[in-house]
Structure formats: structure tokens, C-alpha cells
């Protein structure tokens, strides 16, 4: 029996001023299947009118949020950035990938555990000073280069769990070991590999983290289940921490690792990108006065040049002029980065 819903009675009920008779009516509306649609409309009406300004203290729901966060962290969803292809397969993939997901969760957990247990176990730290590139070799035979101003850390039990933490940029040539995956942890994502050659750039002062794959296969995992991406050779994955989004581009991978050979290679790249990399290379800071010049695209290869010479060569072909500022001493007595101002050539 379908009964019309009386708004006035429903209202009395939610306000707590209702009789047994009202309660019996409300219960009937709830129980009766045929009233459900009408009840939903009535309650939706109430939801829209429901004030969001509450007098009195808000209810403390922190524990509810914390429990939710825990539940969410356990789930490790696959968000592919090539959404269109994946859309139809999301459900199937979720089932098929479950063992893989569980495995990734485990590996991320072990990475975290490593980070947190740094205090109690000994740690090896490789530091590449500003303006230098450092070659490193790991206990498992993997090797690579650490770029200017970067740090690589790993625990002394590296042989059991091949995990390193990277701040800055490094090129890796990972020794193949089917049984033991190799993980590079950075503040926003980790790269999971078996054996391969790739470049990771995760500078704390930059809002993007980049992974470029030259050979083999890697999996890039965002933390808290944000994303999981499988990369193919000659692909560049860029994660932007501000927008929490990632993109994949096809690139010439060699170009991104040429720094390790003392080469600075630019292939049709915007001047903003060129100057960013030169700045990192020579430990200088560029001030660009006119945003228009950032868009100018540039192509060049530099090898073992002085910074003055590099800038001179750029200014010969790009519409820019430049001026070096005298290095200033900071309050702590340490000289600050050299500042070079770039202007548009008139």
C-alpha cells in the first residue's frame, strides 16, 4: 500500500518532536518498498534545505577520517594516465591486478619501513656536490651517476632489499636480478624495476618529478595509491606535485642522461627548460625578466664549457642579453648562488 509522505510529520520526526503515531508512520514509509521513491524525494528536499551553518561546536570526526585513511591506504588502485584505453577494462584489471597490487603495497611498505628504520640501522650516503657529477657503484653491481647537488642513500643491508632513496637526479644502470626488485624512492613516487637503464630527477625545490626510461621496463608508483604507471623505453613520465597529475611523453631518452657524460644536450626545448638545466649544472640561478623569452626553443650541445661561455653561445643564437651579478654573501657567511639576469634583446 503506497502512502503519501507527509512532509510535516517527517519534519517533526527529524527535529525530535514526534509522537508514537508519527513514528509508526515514518517507519511505514521506510519499510514499504513502494514508498521508497517518494521518500527519497522528500528526504532529498530535506538534504538541500539542511543548513551547513551549525550553531554550537562541530562534531569531532577526526577518528572517522583516520579510519578512512587507513582503509584507503590498503587499497592500491591503478590509475592509468591513458584513461581512454583503460576505461572499459578498469573492472577486469582491478581483479587481475590484485596480486600485483598487493605486491606493490608490500614493496612500498618495505620502503617506508626502511625510511623509518634509518635511525637504528646504518646508512650509506652518497653526495654529489654542486657543480659536480659523481659516479656510484652499489653492492649488487648496479651503478650510475649522481648529478650536481644530489644525494643517494641506502641501508647496509642493501643486498637483501635493493632499495635506495634519491634526492635530486640520478642515472641508474640496474643489475638484472629476477628475484629481487630494485626500488628508487623519492618524496612523491617510487620507481620499481628489475634490471634496466633510467634517469630519475626529483629535486625538492622543483614541483615536478621526472622519470625517463632508456632500456627495459619500470613501474612508477605514487604514494598513497595515487597512481601506478608502467613505462616503456623512450618514455618520460612527469609528475606534478601541485596538480597531483602525471603525464607520459615520448622522448629521446639519451638526451636526458647525457649529463652523466659531461654533455648538456638540448633538442628543441623551451629556453625556460634549457636555463633550468644549465642552472642545475653550474649551480647558478637565472632571473628571467620577460616571460615571453621562456618560450623560445633552443637546440645545442655543450661539452665541458665554462658557464660564461655557455651563456655567450646561447645569446649569439637566441634573442637574449645577459648580465652576471656579483656573488653575495649570505648572513651565514656562505656565498649565495651566482645570479644571472636574462633580458630580451632589443
Amino acid at each position, binding site marked *: 500500500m503506497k502512502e503519501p509522505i507527509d512532509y510535516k510529520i517527517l519534519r517533526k520526526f527529524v527535529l*525530535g518532536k*514526534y509522537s*508514537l503515531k508519527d513514528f509508526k508512520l515514518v517507519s511505514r514509509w521506510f519499510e514499504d518498498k513502494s514508498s521508497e521513491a517518494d521518500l527519497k524525494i522528500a528526504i532529498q528536499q*530535506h538534504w538541500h534545505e*539542511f543548513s551547513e551553518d*551549525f550553531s554550537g561546536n562541530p562534531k569531532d570526526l577526526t577518528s572517522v*577520517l583516520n579510519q578512512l*585513511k587507513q582503509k*584507503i591506504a590498503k*587499497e592500491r588502485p591503478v590509475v592509468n594516465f591513458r584513461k581512454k584505453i583503460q576505461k572499459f577494462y578498469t573492472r577486469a584489471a582491478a581483479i587481475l591486478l590484485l596480486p600485483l597490487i598487493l605486491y606493490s603495497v608490500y614493496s612500498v611498505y618495505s620502503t617506508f619501513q626502511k625510511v623509518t628504520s634509518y635511525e637504528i640501522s646504518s646508512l650509506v650516503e652518497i653526495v654529489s656536490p654542486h657543480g659536480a657529477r659523481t659516479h656510484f657503484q652499489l653492492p649488487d653491481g648496479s651503478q650510475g651517476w649522481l648529478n650536481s647537488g644530489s644525494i643517494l642513500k641506502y641501508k647496509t643491508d642493501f643486498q637483501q632489499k635493493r632499495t635506495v632513496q634519491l634526492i635530486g637526479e640520478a642515472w641508474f644502470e640496474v643489475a638484472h636480478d629476477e628475484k629481487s626488485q630494485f626500488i628508487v624512492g623519492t618524496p612523491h613516487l617510487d620507481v620499481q624495476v628489475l634490471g634496466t637503464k633510467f634517469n630519475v630527477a626529483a629535486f625538492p625545490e622543483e614541483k615536478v618529478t621526472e622519470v625517463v626510461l632508456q632500456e627495459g621496463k619500470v613501474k612508477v608508483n605514487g604514494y598513497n595509491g595515487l597512481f601506478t604507471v608502467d613505462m616503456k623505453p623512450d618514455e618520460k613520465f612527469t609528475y606534478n606535485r601541485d596538480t597531483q597529475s602525471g603525464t607520459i611523453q615520448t622522448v629521446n631518452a639519451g638526451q636526458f642522461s647525457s649529463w652523466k657524460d659531461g654533455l648538456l644536450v638540448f633538442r628543441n626545448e623551451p629556453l625556460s627548460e634549457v636555463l633550468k638545466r644549465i642552472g642545475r649544472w653550474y649551480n647558478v640561478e637565472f632571473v628571467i625578466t620577460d616571460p615571453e623569452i621562456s618560450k623560445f626553443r633552443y637546440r645545442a650541445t655543450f661539452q665541458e664549457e665554462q658557464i660564461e661561455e655557455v651563456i655567450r653561445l646561447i645569446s649569439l643564437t637566441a634573442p637574449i642579453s645577459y648580465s652576471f651579478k656579483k656573488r653575495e654573501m649570505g648572513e651565514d657567511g656562505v656565498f649565495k648562488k651566482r645570479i644571472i639576469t636574462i633580458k630580451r634583446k632589443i
Partner: protein
Amino acid sequence: MKNQQTHTEQQLISLLRNGSQFAFERLFENYSQKLYRFSLSYLKSETEAEEIVQDVFLKLWENREKLRNETSFQSYLFTIAFNDIHKHFNKKARDERYRTEILDSLSGENPAIETNPDFEALVIKLESLIEQMPERRKEIFRKRKKEAKSVKDIAREMSISPKTVENQITEAMNFLKKEFGNDRISGLLFFYVFLE
């Protein structure tokens, strides 16, 4: 409510769709209080209202990829909340039916019970009266009304005669009838305030 949002809701929703926990937490901040109080108004239980909040947001996360825009988010949020409240309400109503039934039968003697605008206070009064009954009578009465056991089963369980069971229940009902008499109901609001 603080609402210093640097992201618009639309941005948050598209971030959530891509699995952003940051966006999830912002949306929780924006909607959890409303959802909590709304659920509380139907379920009258803080624990259950918290359960609704948790469940709705968990489902929101699990189905985040289906979210399209602001309107669909809002209506999706409401739909999950409605279904949850609906389910909880019915379960609760079933669990508490015996109280409604007792009060219903008492209203045969005193029709004011049915129309008294403070049903919640009547329920509290009923519970405290049951609590005041002698131990054995209370036990028999609960088994019969709350657990809906037959007189025969109760008699067997407690090793007493069915007649004794019936007598105890009649006694209990007479006690309640007296306590729910016309003159007592009028002072109910006062009674309720004291209980709080």
C-alpha cells in the same frame, strides 16, 4: 565551518577521480559535518551517524572513477547517504519494534500515549520502568517481548510452568499500565529533562 578552499569543488572532484587523497580529505572536510548531522536527525544515534559518514565516504572513494561533475557528485553523495540511512533505519526499527508494540498496546488504555509529542521520552521511560522490575519478571518479560520467545519456550528454558510465565507477563503489563496512566504522562517532559 572553515572553508578556505584553494581548489574549487570541480577541481577537487576531478582530482578525486584520479585517486587524490588530498582531494578526498578536502571533500571530507566540506561535507562530513553536514552528513553527520543529517544522519543523526534520522537515526538519533551518534555512533550510527558516524558509521554513515564513514561508509558514505568509503563508497565515494571506491566509486570515485564514476564521478563526473559537481552535480553528479552531490547527487551521488546524497544517494549513498539515503540508501545507508534507509538501511540503518529499518534495522533499528526492527530491533526496537518491541518497544513500539508495548507502547502501542498501552495506548489502548491511555490514547494520550499515541499522540504525546515526545515519543523518545516515552521510550526512555519504558526502558527505565522495565529496569525497575524484579529480576525474574524482567527476564521473563524481555524474553517474551524483546526476543519474541513463546511462553512454552520460556517456561522450558527457565524450568518453570507456563502459567508462571503468563502471570509474570500480566504483572509486568499491569505495572506498566499503571505507570503510563494519564496522570503520569503529563509530567513526562520533566522526567525526561532529569534523565538527561
